[in-house]
């Protein structure tokens, strides 16, 4: 397969279509517009492809939910403020166990914030985001190649677990171009016995999220919880970079992890043994894998383009077994590897 140069937003769109996505609905918001535009252009040529520019993010997620219930592979995308609007529908999809992909190309926040790359939606993405007791699988790609691969994988996991999956990237990932090779998508494995196609001559079915009976709702919650624990057991992904001899490990994801790698290169050139632990799934969080590192590493630095959100998960994972520092740049600021290297160098000197 040929290597092509594409922007992150377009890569997500292309990977989705190759993975068999046949229904996309979305609403314009910077910095993810190119994805919506890509789907508008390319769904036309996909067999049975449907593109709808919806009147709002709320409508988009519900269109997607409907199409998912009708058996299509579905995707919607937005950026931070739009994702907040979609939460009602995401919660509903989780309740109704409808597969679907939600792409969040994060920007600065809270509120309208700005359109610069940011990582302020970590809590929203990993804690469910909407109301109720649910989780969504969250992928945090750090390269355009990973955007392509994880987008395809996201569809497989959404089908496998019948759950919404979020791809959490930021404005920089969406806008930047990198060479990418599209892998061959897997065949769709999908139980269609819950899909609504009309009852035919058989029994009619319904899909619902409202369970007025307390015992039913409680059982449904536990059923979802069991599903989430299976996901936690099977689907954790992370990257460990130069940790073998590390005295200090930076924990970062997405764009921040790229910057961290740049910083690590500089630091190592100066003889400082620094490594990177990069969660690729933010939920499920690679908790045990991170804790295992604490057997040898006693100093961690969490680095995020936020005021400290993943920091909580790192604290929960390390459970006091190691010292944790934090460096954050919220609001759309993208720090340089040099800046981070300076921060790490100061901490490194204190490492005993």
């Amino acid at each position, binding site marked *: 397969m040929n290597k092509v140069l594409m922007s992150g937003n377009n890569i997500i769109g292309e990977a989705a279509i190759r993975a068999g996505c046949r229904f996309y609905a979305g609403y314009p918001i910077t910095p993810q517009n190119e994805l919506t535009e890509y789907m508008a252009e390319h769904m036309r040529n996909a067999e049975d492809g449907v593109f709808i520019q919806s009147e*709002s993010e709320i409508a988009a997620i519900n269109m997607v939910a*409907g199409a998912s219930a*009708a058996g299509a592979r579905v995707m919607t995308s937005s950026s931070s403020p739009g994702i907040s609007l979609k939460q009602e529908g995401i919660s509903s999809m989780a309740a109704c166990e409808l597969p679907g992909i939600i792409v969040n190309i994060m920007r600065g926040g809270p509120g309208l914030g700005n359109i610069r790359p940011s990582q302020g939606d970590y809590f929203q993405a990993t804690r469910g985001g909407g109301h109720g007791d649910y989780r969504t699988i969250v992928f945090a790609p750090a390269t355009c190649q990973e955007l392509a691969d994880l987008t395809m994988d996201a569809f497989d996991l959404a089908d496998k677990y019948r759950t919404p999956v979020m791809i959490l990237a930021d404005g920089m990932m969406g806008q930047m171009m990198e060479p990418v090779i599209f892998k061959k998508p897997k065949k769709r494995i999908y139980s269609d016995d819950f899909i*609504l196609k*009309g009852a035919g001559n058989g029994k*009619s079915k319904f899909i619902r999220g*409202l369970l007025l009976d307390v015992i039913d709702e409680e059982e449904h919650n536990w059923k979802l919880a069991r599903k989430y624990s299976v996901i936690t057991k099977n689907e954790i992904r992370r990257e460990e970079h130069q940790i073998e001899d590390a005295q200090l490990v930076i924990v970062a994801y997405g764009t921040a992890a790229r910057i961290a790698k740049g910083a690590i290169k500089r630091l190592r050139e100066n003889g400082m043994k620094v490594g990177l632990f990069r969660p690729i799934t933010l939920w499920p969080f690679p908790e045990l894998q991170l804790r295992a590192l604490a057997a040898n590493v006693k100093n961690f630095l969490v680095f995020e383009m936020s005021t400290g959100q993943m920091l909580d998960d790192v604290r929960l994972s390390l459970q006091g077994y190691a010292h944790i520092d934090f460096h954050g740049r919220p609001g759309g600021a993208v720090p340089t590897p040099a800046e981070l290297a300076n921060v790490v160098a100061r901490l490194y000197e204190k490492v005993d």
Partner: protein
Amino acid sequence: MAKKVFGRPKSLKDKIFHYCPGCGHSIAHRLIAEVIDELDIRGITIGVPPAGCAVLAYNYLDVDMIEAPHGRGPAMASGIKRTLPDRIVFSYQGDGDLAAIGIAESFHAANRGENISVIFINNAVYGMTGGQMAPTTILNQKTTTSPAGRHKILDGYPVKVSEFFSQLEGVTYIERCMVNSPTNINKTRKAIKKSFQCQMDGMGFSLVEILSPCPTNWKMNPIDSCKWIDEVMSKTFPPGVFKDNTASVKKAAEGAS
């Protein structure tokens, strides 16, 4: 031998409605089931019930159904219909659902001319939550959140869905009916049938608004509720056909073929 001339429609499950005595939802459900039977489309129909009293419609209507979050029915129905264009898809919505929180979804599904049917129950209050003021509450009507009566200065005016949706180019057919008398109920059945037929013929968006009694929240008995629709409510919401392009759409299609 006596012949049965009226009984339970086949597309209705054998269950007692949870609705209050004299509730118009029950009648509307039955009419939809009758139409589904008449058109013989039970096996290809997918319904989208709303949040509101009718959220449990899937307990009664024996067709595939998926519950939509409050107000989002037409968006969900659009997604289903676009994915399965040969199925009959309808959204069933109350006045709060369609005309307040979901006005955007409804308006734009109509404007896109989605080939779906919308059954819109207008009972001038929020029923399930206990009779609060709805977008369709008429002026001076007392509700739990307009205890002194809806005041135009404070609360604005009742939203006339059929009137303003009929202005949208995407809309093919809109009729406002009532379910407060046998004659009106029969008219409503015809309207629902026409709406489903419109969809089966691929003619696009149609909506049937049904003025429907809510005796519990109106704090009237069922008989007075039916009278109130005639004497008061229908003055703000006059019944009738607000748009019917089915003939011209059919003609254009024949001309093209």
